[in-house]
Structures are given as structure tokens and as C-alpha cells.
């Protein structure tokens, strides 16, 4: 699969799930670099280039974000809300990748402008298939928002 360049940011606190996800993407033939942050606060630092990530350039911005809901420090829905509240991350493709299929989580995620919501399958074969389809769709089929638009009109909320 010839996918676009760009990193995938995986926001996941469970090391088992990180290992599973990395293998699933590898198995699916997705060669994009996958960076992992393990809580909501770190995710925000990374995406806003602040804290430990201060000074990181716009080219470090991931092509897609895979966001868990149940996260330490700042929860996934709150991370999503804050990303959508900032002009520079408002159109960033964000995919919820979570165990939960609670109706309220789905409602909250879509209300706050998530692009996609995928439930982690228990079965690894299905997990790998989900990873393959996520990669196929979001890194190949889907047209990403223009990078200029990501930064333009900042503060015009």
C-alpha cells in the first residue's frame, strides 16, 4: 500500500494496546512512522508544540491522530474538544480508537467533531484488519485538509 507521507500519532496509555497497534499497522503494511504519547496532556503538548515538544516545527504535525477515550490526566474527549477549539488543529483528522462503544462516548466524540470512531476489536486478526482499513482510508483515499488551511486564519474562531 502506497500511503501518504506523514506520521501517525497514537495516543494510548496501555502498553499492551500500543504493542498490538504497532504490530497491527505493520501487518497492514502501513510504513508511516507511528509516534506514541501515553496521556492526554502529552498529546496536547505534542500537537500544540509546547512543553517537552516546544520548538517542534509544523512538519512534525501528524497526518492523523488515533485517540483513545479513557486516558490519564486529560481524557480523550477533552483532548478532542481542545484540539477543535484551536484554529491550527481544528481540521486535523482525528480517529477515536477505543474499547468503548458507550452511546454517550459516541455522542460526545461526534459532537466535538471527531472524524471517525473505531472500536478496538478484541480479536487481533480483526484489529489488524481495522488498522489496515484505517490506513487505507485516512492515508490513501481521503483527501487531507490543505496544510495552509491548518495554520491560516488562526485566531479567527
Amino acid at each position, binding site marked *: 500500500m502506497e500511503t501518504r507521507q506523514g506520521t501517525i500519532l497514537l495516543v494510548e496509555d*496501555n502498553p499492551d*494496546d500500543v504493542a*498490538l497497534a504497532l504490530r497491527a499497522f505493520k501487518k497492514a503494511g502501513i510504513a508511516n512512522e507511528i509516534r506514541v504519547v501515553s496521556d492526554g496532556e502529552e498529546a496536547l503538548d505534542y500537537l500544540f508544540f509546547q512543553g517537552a515538544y516546544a520548538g517542534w516545527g509544523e512538519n512534525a504535525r501528524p497526518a492523523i491522530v488515533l485517540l483513545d477515550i479513557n486516558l490519564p490526566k486529560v481524557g480523550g474527549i477533552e483532548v478532542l474538544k481542545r484540539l477543535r477549539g484551536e484554529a491550527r488543529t481544528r481540521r486535523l483528522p482525528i480517529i477515536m480508537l477505543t*474499547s468503548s462503544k*458507550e452511546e454517550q462516548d459516541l455522542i460526545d466524540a461526534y459532537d466535538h467533531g471527531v472524524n471517525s470512531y473505531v472500536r478496538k476489536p478484541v480479536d487481533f486478526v480483526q*484489529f489488524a484488519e481495522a488498522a489496515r482499513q484505517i490506513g487505507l482510508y485516512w492515508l490513501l483515499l481521503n483527501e487531507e485538509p490543505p496544510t495552509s488551511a491548518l495554520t491560516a486564519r488562526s485566531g479567527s474562531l
Partner: protein
Amino acid sequence: MKSGRPLFFLLALALVLSWGFGVSFHRAAREGASFAVFALDIFLGAATLAFLWREISRNSNQAELLNSIVTNIGDGVVAADASGKFTVFNPAARKIMGENKMSDYPDKWAENHGVYYPNRANFVKPEDLPMARALRGEATDGAEFFVKNDLNPEGIFISVTGRPLFDERGRLAGGVVVLTDITKRKLREARVEELNRDLEVLTQKLTQSNKELESFSYSVAHDLRAPLRAITGFGQFLLEDYAARLDDQGRDYIHRIHLGCQRMGQLIDELLALSNITRRELKNEKVDMGALASSIMGELKAAEPERSIEFLDPGNIEAVGDPGLLRIALQNLIGNAWKFTRKTKNARIEIGEEPVCLCGEKIFFVKDNGVGFDMKYSNRMFDPFQRFHSQADFPGEGLGLAIVSRVILRHGGRIWAKGEVGKGAAFYFTLGNGGHSHGNETGDHTAGRG
């Protein structure tokens, strides 16, 4: 006093007439006028006197009537003149205000009679007393006080209405107040308030336990699945990366681990489904159970087209309830019938409604001619995790009928089963008021089995 003016007028008239009568009499005697004139005069005078007498007695009857009303009326009536001196203080007012003598009016009035604000702590200030207000020309409507004195040692609540009184020239002439004992009403109100408070506490507790249930379900959904994913995932890695180093038995073990995880995943999903049935809000809509059953049968047939099962289109079966929940219930019941006729020749599944019974309750049924069950288990079969067949013969988690039962109970209905080993099973259920064509929401009755 309304009667004052006509009385005065009548007295004046009588004086004029008797003066006329006297004059006529003297003139008649002096001038020797005819007896007829004299007689007419006499007659006129007598008629006047009779009229006068009637008017006076009528007035005094009215006064007596008024007096009698004020004395016997259940409400306390107190009237005072402009100086604050009481002119009326009826027995009911006495019963409320106690036997204490009026003194130092109005400064000590509240203390002498034990008149408090409704908080029962402070005496009513003299200027706030309805009579004092009336004597200032102000009206009072339904002011509530608490009274505790020699005649009412336990204390009573009263409602007071006061009005100023004016004379015919519009000058303030006094005041009148009406006192009503509202203790019973107040006690009822207090009881209602108390019940409301209890209800609030209960509601809070319920909300709290619902929240706990919700976070429990959330935890089941999220936290239990994560380790399961790890077990099955890393088991899969073992198979993929180390298959060559494992013998058949080792690979079989990993396969069993994998199957166990799959089952546990299903179990978690079904437990969640069960708890969702209790938590979700119940809709109340018209549902065609026949169409629902046909669509579920269609799905089952599409999944296993090789199976041939006789299924009669039940036509329109009207019910009122939650369409989503009723679909879940029928899915489980028909799914069971589908499952337990797997080894039956000429398998048949039937869905319908019994003729309406005398109670007017609709009874729906799902019947099959599958493996059936022993009736001695019939009371346990709606409890969670109850299974009556081996996993190898008929796989399942034992939650299907528990889910069905919970759906039926949420509708305020009942469910029961009849069966015989080898001959099939029949499940009957009602939907409470929802079973009637014009049923209303029955709420969350959980009577019967839990």
C-alpha cells in the same frame, strides 16, 4: 350601621305625622269640622305607627340575625372602633385568641395572645397585626400566623383577613378581622413537604446508584476488554512468530486461549447489552411484532441459507412498546428457536398472539418444535447464566432469556415458558398496558421475577 339612616328618617316622619294628627284633632274640636276628617286623621296616624313599629322590629330582627351569625360562625370575627376598642369578639375568635384580657392595645396584644410569625419564634410586631393595619386603613389578605396560648397550648396556625371600616362620610371608623384556623391544612402541607423531601433524597440515591451502575458498565466495557485484547493478541503473536517451535499440543493450547477470549468478549458484550436494557429510556410506540419477527427470520435465513425451517408469516401483530427493546427480545426468542431446532427434522417456528383473554391482556408467543426443555427448570431459565445444554451441543452464554425477561419486565409484562424434552418449547409474554392497542406507558415495573 346601614339601618341608622332609615330609622332616623322614620322617627322624623312619625313626629311630623303625630304633630299633624294633634293639630287636626284640635282644629276639629275648635272648628267643629266633620267627624270624617277626624277619622281620616286617626287612621293615618295609626297606619304610620303600625308601619313604624314594623320597621323598628324588622331592624331589630336583622340585628339579632347578624348577632346570631357572628356568634355561631366557625371563623373568628373581631371588630374594633377607631380608638381600637373591641366592639365584636365572637366565641370562635375567643377560642383562637385565648382567654387573656385585652390590654395595652396594641403593643402587648401579640404577647398576651401568643401570636407569632409562622416561624413560631418571634412575636408579631404590633404594626404587622391585621387589626392594627385595618385601623391604619390597610387591608390584609390571608396573612398566616402561629398562635400559642392558654386555650391552644400545642399551638395552631391561623390565616387572617382584615379590612378597615368607614362611616357613611368615608371616615375611618374602625376595623374588622376574620381569623381562620388552618392548622389541619398546614399539617397536611408539612406532611407533603416532608414526603417531597424524602422523595428527593430517594431520587438522589437512585441517581447516585444509577451513576455507579453506569461507571461499572463503563468499566466492564473498557477495562475488561483491554486485558482480553492483550491475551488474544499476544497469543496470536506466539502462533505467528513461534509456530515452528510449538508442537501440535502447544498450538492447540493457544487456540483454546483464543477461543476462551472470544467467548469472554461475547460475554462482556451481552452483559453490557443486559445492563443497557435496564438503563435506557423506554419508548412507547406502536410496534408490529409480526413484521419484526419476519424481518428477524429473514436475517437468520440469510445467515444460514442452507437450513430449511417452516415459518408462517404471522401478519400484523399490534403491540405498544419500545421498538428497539422489543426487537432485542424477539431476536433472542426467535434466535433460541432457530438454535434449538438445529437438529430437528421439519423444524417449525411460530410467532403469534393468543386470543385476547378476559382480562384484555394480549399474550404473544414464540413456539418451536426443537429439543425443548424439562419443565422442572422452567422457573430458573430466565435467570442470567442459566444453561440447559452443553456448550458443544448448543453454544451460548445463558444471557439471552435473561435479556428477554428484562425487556418484558421493563414493559410491565410477564413471561413464562412451556416445554417438553424432545417436543419443543413455547414462550409466552405480555407487555403490561403496552399489550393493549391503546395502552399507556406502564413505567418501570419490576414486579415478578428480577
